[in-house]
């Protein structure tokens, strides 16, 4: 078909819009001056400042721990939920269940944060647990919304799944549980990996929910960044952002390459 | 079951190219996709009211050629003329050509009526005229009661008819059909073949049909263009293609054929004699062939053109008889197919009509039999 000029131009502008602010942020992270937007010479001093800021480092370490824990809990819960939704065609409360699983995806963060905080406060009053708020409550909150994301990812992989593979395994004498671990799990493994990674990044990224359910002394990295940014520009945030963007870009790049390699070439007819 | 010619022989336009102007003229058209040459230097003339079939395997370039006629692809070189006008650079929406897609490409969000009316609306026809034309087309394809339905509420055969009606709605001069019967099951396909021919004859539109199904091509076509690896291997009426193939490819692609290699030993204007070690005998051909003495060539013969017998038949020139052992018999009801292993090891297939019911004396496995054929039953092929 004949191609117009409109689409390529619109798409290029769109990508420029997406990337220009990020690129400028990366460039200015190497700026000598503490004015974030006026170039005055190349320097890596803000990176140095970053690594000598104990508050920032502590928050980063806390965030990584929370993200790993929350993603792992979400992986288990989300996979179970996905199996139930894809495989159990009919059960009592299915609609309610599927709504509960997918609602956190679109629930505004402020509502999720507030509701969990109020729950934790009420629970503490009634049951004496959780005592105060901190890492545990943040992990619970993050695991809850990450479950929804994991479930979506695993669900799409499971519905593409060729059921006859499992039937073959059972025909050859494997029990349903055995079949799940021998056949199903290896095949959906890529979805599990991407589900976990998605949960990990989302947890690492969350500011609003964590602000509600965290307690004194448990400030996550986004909370520290937010307080810095709110007070004004700070070039060390640029440096931090550059590091995070670099790690994420490498990760996504690696994942994409892996995915492209493992995917069999589709034959175009 | 070749299509009966509707026209007296002297008016079949392709037989008198001097006095008839072709309706579609494809000249030296090539199409490259990257490094792949999909269509290579094709020249083809198609005449008004023809039902021309492009026949070929997958990757033969037949669909690409059709898409160039529709305007979805631009030829890398060469020109396409339709009704005397150069169409090479005309976009699809401005061509007097419509296409019926293999997948039917019915718009899923529109009803049957809206699908058929789509092209007419784009032409800005008055509403009343569109309604009348849609009704007329629905009647033509016998779907009067289905106008309000959506495509997904129709059966495969009904969808196929909607696609045909939609393509015919604008009264195109030329209708392109991409595997029009490909998605139908066998029984429906046979019925629909005749419907299609009837509609084509009654409207007098020129059809170009792409198909990989030779039976379909034989049934539908006035002429067939056999395509192979981007080139036209042969153009001819169905009987020409079957009985007088011009190459080993056409002979083996259409129907089934026994093919042997041989060397010319006698080359006279009235006959040739070919010695074939594979066949274990000489082949006497009762017409001249453009060849040289001692030339290596091929001879092809259809299974039904040969006769099996227990006694050795005599031949005036001491040729056209060989013998072998019956290896396999496939009973197909109307005919039986025999596979005979010649002494050279070459296997020949011969079909015999089962004219006697439950014949107890039929030739059976492991019997030595003689195979013979008439002097002009086979085709001599030099390429």
């Amino acid at each position, binding site marked *: 078909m004949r191609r117009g000029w409109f*689409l390529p131009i619109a798409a290029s502008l769109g*990508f420029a819009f997406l990337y220009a602010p990020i690129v400028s942020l990366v460039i200015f992270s190497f700026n000598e001056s503490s004015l974030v937007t006026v170039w005055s010479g190349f320097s890596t001093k803000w990176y140095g400042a970053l690594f000598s800021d104990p508050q920032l480092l502590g928050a980063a370490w806390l965030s990584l721990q929370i993200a790993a824990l929350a993603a792992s809990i979400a992986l288990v819960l989300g996979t179970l939920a996905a199996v139930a939704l894809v495989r159990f065609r009919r059960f009592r409360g299915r609609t309610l269940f599927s709504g509960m699983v997918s609602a956190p995806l679109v629930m505004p963060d402020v509502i999720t944060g507030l509701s969990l905080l109020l729950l934790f406060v009420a629970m503490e009053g009634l049951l004496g647990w959780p005592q105060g708020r901190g890492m545990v409550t943040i992990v619970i909150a993050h695991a*809850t919304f990450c479950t929804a994301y994991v479930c979506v990812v695993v669900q799409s992989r499971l519905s593409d799944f060729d059921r006859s593979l499992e039937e073959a395994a059972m025909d050859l004498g494997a029990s349903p549980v055995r079949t799940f671990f021998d056949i199903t799990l290896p095949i959906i493994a890529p979805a599990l990996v991407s589900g976990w990674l998605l949960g990990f990044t989302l947890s690492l990224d969350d500011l609003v929910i964590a602000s509600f359910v965290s307690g004194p002394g448990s400030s996550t990295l986004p909370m520290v960044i937010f307080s810095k940014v709110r007070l004004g520009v700070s070039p060390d945030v640029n440096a931090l952002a550059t590091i*995070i963007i670099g790690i994420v870009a490498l990760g996504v790049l690696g994942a994409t390459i892996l995915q492209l390699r493992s995917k069999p070439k589709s034959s175009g007819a | 079951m070749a299509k009966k010619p509707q026209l007296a022989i002297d008016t079949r336009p392709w037989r008198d190219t001097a006095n008839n102007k072709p309706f579609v003229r494809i000249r030296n058209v090539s199409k490259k996709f990257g490094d792949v040459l999909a269509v290579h230097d094709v020249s083809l003339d198609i005449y008004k009211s023809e039902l021309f079939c492009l026949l070929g395997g997958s990757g033969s370039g037949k669909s690409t050629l059709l898409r160039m006629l529709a305007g979805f692809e631009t030829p890398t070189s060469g020109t396409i003329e339709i009704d005397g006008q150069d169409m090479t650079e005309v976009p*699809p929406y401005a061509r007097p050509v419509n296409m019926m897609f293999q997948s039917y490409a019915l718009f899923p969000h529109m009803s049957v009526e809206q699908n058929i009316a789509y092209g007419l609306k784009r032409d800005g026809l008055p509403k009343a005229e569109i309604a009348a034309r849609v009704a007329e087309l629905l009647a033509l394809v016998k779907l009067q009661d289905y106008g309000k339905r959506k495509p997904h509420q129709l059966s495969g055969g009904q969808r196929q008819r909607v696609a045909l009606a939609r393509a015919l709605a604008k009264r195109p001069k030329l209708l392109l059909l991409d595997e029009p019967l490909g998605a139908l099951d066998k029984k429906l396909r046979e019925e629909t073949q005749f419907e299609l021919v009837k509609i084509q004859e009654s409207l007098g539109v020129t059809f170009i049909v792409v198909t990989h199904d030779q039976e379909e091509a034989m049934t539908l076509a006035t002429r067939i263009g056999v395509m192979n690896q981007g080139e036209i291997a042969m153009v001819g009426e169905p009987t020409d293609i079957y009985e007088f193939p011009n190459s080993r490819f056409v002979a083996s692609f259409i129907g089934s054929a026994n093919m042997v290699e041989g060397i010319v030993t006698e080359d006279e204007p009235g006959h040739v004699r070919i010695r074939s070690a594979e066949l274990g005998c000489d082949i006497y051909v009762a017409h001249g062939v453009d060849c040289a003495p001692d030339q290596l060539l091929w001879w092809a013969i259809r299974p039904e053109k040969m006769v099996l017998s227990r006694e050795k038949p005599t031949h005036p020139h001491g040729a056209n008889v060989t013998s072998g052992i019956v290896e396999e018999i496939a009973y197909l009801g109307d005919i039986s197919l025999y596979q005979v292993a010649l002494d050279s090891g070459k296997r020949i297939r011969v079909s015999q009509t089962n004219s006697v019911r439950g014949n107890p004396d039929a030739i059976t496995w492991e019997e030595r039999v003689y195979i013979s054929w008439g002097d002009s039953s086979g085709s001599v092929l030099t390429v």
Partner: protein
Amino acid sequence: MTIARDPTIPPPRRLKPWNAVERGLAKVGITGRMLVLAAPVLWLLVFFLIPLAVVFGISLTTKQFGRPPYSPLLTTEEGTVQLTLQFNNYIRLFTDNLYVAAYLSSIRIAAISTVITLLVGYPMAYAIARAPDRWRNIFLMLVVLPFFTSFLLRVYALTGFMRGNGVINQFLGLFGIPPLVMMQTDFAVYVGIVYTYLPFMILPLYTTLVKLDTSLFEASADLGARPIHTFLFVTLPLSLPGIVAGSMLVFIPAIGEFVIPSLLGGPETLMIGRVLWDEFFAATNWPRAAAVAVAMLVVVVVPIMLLQRAQGAVVEK
């Protein structure tokens, strides 16, 4: 190759502990299904559904000093349990101009941003869907990549771009154009929402567009439709589920957005997420914040239902 087996040695007994466990559980009436469902159901019940009920309950109390900072819903008086429901928070929501204005302004900002995101995202999604196979994955990755980098940092990147002496104004300065005031305006909030939520718009649009059979476009052209007509009559209606899904995925979170209005918006940029935040953290009026949340939930319920339906249509086909 065959493996000879000594016939005198009995074949090894296969241990199938799972089979035994399953049989045992089945006897007590517990099926595998129940086991699979138990954990996610319990978790979501306790940490998703009940919290919403708690929010609703607390929205019916009033602020008081102490721990917790709200009046108890249930009180025991002389052995009888008493339920005290107070609707003053909701009455306040409807009578105080601040709240009404915040809701309306949130809806307006979210709606305008959604439309802009659609206008920016549609051509991009279309271009990606029509790109050659090997480019498509790269483009998709480029769309998703910013989504994985921190949301907060992307908003921050925008502040560097739009501030008074930011990149855009420095660029305009090269042409002698005086600096534009972009930060702390509604404009900056629109840009922020479009910028951060663009991937959510592009992905569902792409999913519907890439599934469309190209022969439909060819059929349309073949029937005489110019490209613009093919777009209007074929492409656009067929991509409607993607448009709805993408728009809702932007609109719903934008309604409750807090970070963007507080970093990019001005003091007069009223958004309900910000009001809730301030009510909770600054005024520590938990019951009022809860009422604001319940009202916000009511606002997003219809879009969420629209989204569910559209997503079904995007995934199916």
